[in-house]
């Protein structure tokens, strides 16, 4: 009877002690990891680097807070702050994914517009090339400019294919801009050559 009472008291103390120990918020840790991975997969680290970094920093802080509590005596652990931080990781990651999608859409619109501009400019270049001084007077120059148009056309084909294949839009954006500038420069050059040739014939 006495022994039984003693066992009961000891067991009760043990149960209360164990029950009052806070648990590691593993579900929150896992959710934060998944969210960060999803953001990275979406390309947030490249498209919205600052937002992505905020999520990564929050993850680091959250995990450090978990370890800070783990270092304490079991009875004194409290993971509430860590949980809050880890939850914010998911929020920040989701926000980064949303921003990435918006940035990609904006870039896609920019590239599509640039492709249209490039197509028009190349067509204009070709028209001007047809009007450029021909025969022995300008054959070499016309050939050289024709080759330059060919190079810009290659870029146009690559970027258009990239848009269809959903290639990295950031790379396509960087690629198409110099090509548009080049096509415009050819346009100016040809306009100049044609004007010069006309000017020469007047006298």
């Amino acid at each position, binding site marked *: 009877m006495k022994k039984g009472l003693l066992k009961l008291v000891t067991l009760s103390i043990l149960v209360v002690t164990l029950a009052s120990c806070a648990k590691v918020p593993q579900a929150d840790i896992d959710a934060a990891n998944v969210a960060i991975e999803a953001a990275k997969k979406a390309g947030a680290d490249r498209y919205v680097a*600052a937002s992505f970094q905020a999520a990564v920093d929050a993850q680091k802080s959250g995990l450090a807070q978990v370890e800070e509590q*783990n*270092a304490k005596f079991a009875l004194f652990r409290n993971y509430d702050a860590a949980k809050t931080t880890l939850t914010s990781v998911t929020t920040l990651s989701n926000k980064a994914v949303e921003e990435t999608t918006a940035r990609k859409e904006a870039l896609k619109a920019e590239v599509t517009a640039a492709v249209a501009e490039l197509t028009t400019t190349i067509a204009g270049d070709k028209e001007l090339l047809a009007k450029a001084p021909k025969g022995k007077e300008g054959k070499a*120059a016309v050939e050289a400019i024709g080759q330059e148009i060919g*190079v810009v056309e290659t870029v146009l084909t690559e970027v258009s294919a990239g848009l269809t294949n959903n290639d990295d839009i950031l790379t396509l954006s960087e690629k198409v801009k110099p090509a548009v500038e*080049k096509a415009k420069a050819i346009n100016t050059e040809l306009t100049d050559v044609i004007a010069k040739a006309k000017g020469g014939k007047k006298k």
Partner: protein
Amino acid sequence: MRFGFIKKTLFYIGILSLASLIILVLLLLFMDKPPMEDFNKCIEVMTKAKKINADVYAPEYYQSAETNYKYAFIELRRQNEKLFFQRNFSKAKELIVNAILKAELARNASGTNKDTQKARFLKETELLRKKLDSYHEFFIKLPLRTQTRKDYEFGKLSVEESVNAFEKGDIMKANKKLNEGKSRISYADAEVNQLLKEYFSRFPKWQHWVENTISASASNKCYALVVDKIKHKGFLYLNGKLYKEYDVEFGKNWIGDKLYAGDNATPEGRYIITRKKGTRDSGYYKAMMLNYPNAEDLSEFAARKRSGQISRSRGIGGLIEIHGNGGKGVDWTKGCVALSDDKIDELYSKLSVGSPVTIVGSTVALSDLLK
């Protein structure tokens, strides 16, 4: 009896609990504490470092900070898995302090490196752009292979892509594209350099001709024209001083000396004007005939024939003039020097029969030209 036993038992439990509590408190007081402040500080410093792109501009320090942080965290977890009185965070402390140090170094170095790299990148791209711009005229006119022109154009586009990437802060991509561009341009460069190097072997002779022509203009107090093929310019001198310069056009095979009749090349040498033709006499608005071939041309032509460089049936050609109808922006003559009509009017009024006209490949050395 029973009450005494309970009392005794409770007394022992109490003593035992008190002793345990004292031991626990002592252990808790003296147990090793994790360096959480350092961990938080490290996260803070690394965030600041990352914000100023230390991972790009001081990658070695930043990577080292990341690695030290990673191992410090692993060590922290390892110690936390042990019983509290067995924990020893000294290793984790050492690693996290090291991580802070590296992150601080990355932060400090990033600013300096960013400025240095930016300045270097901008200087490099500016030089490359200048070179490409100065090459543009040559490339249009030089007899190059199609692939060479393509390399040159793709190279130019890569340089511009690189600038775009740099402006967006993607330094790695910017450097990659810049190297791609440089590599393609260098192929074209090699061919151009080869062509120009051979051509410029005659530079000492040209230099001598130009000096003599300018001296003659000074000593005879007259106008003299120096034509620079590479620059596509005619430099008019008066009394030995540069008076005016004009854009000029040549035959389509302008690189190199004239070898024979019909080669569409413009001759190089020291000449004089032998005849002036007005609008009625010239098919090219106005013209000034040169004494091509001169004695040196005739002697070189004979030597080339003897050596078999030129077939015996070829003639040396003639009727080389400075005439109008130019300003087309292309090299189109059969070997003459063409100017726009308003410019030939100007030149026609300054030069007279007997005026010296010297035609050279270049008035500046190749090394200066390629700078």
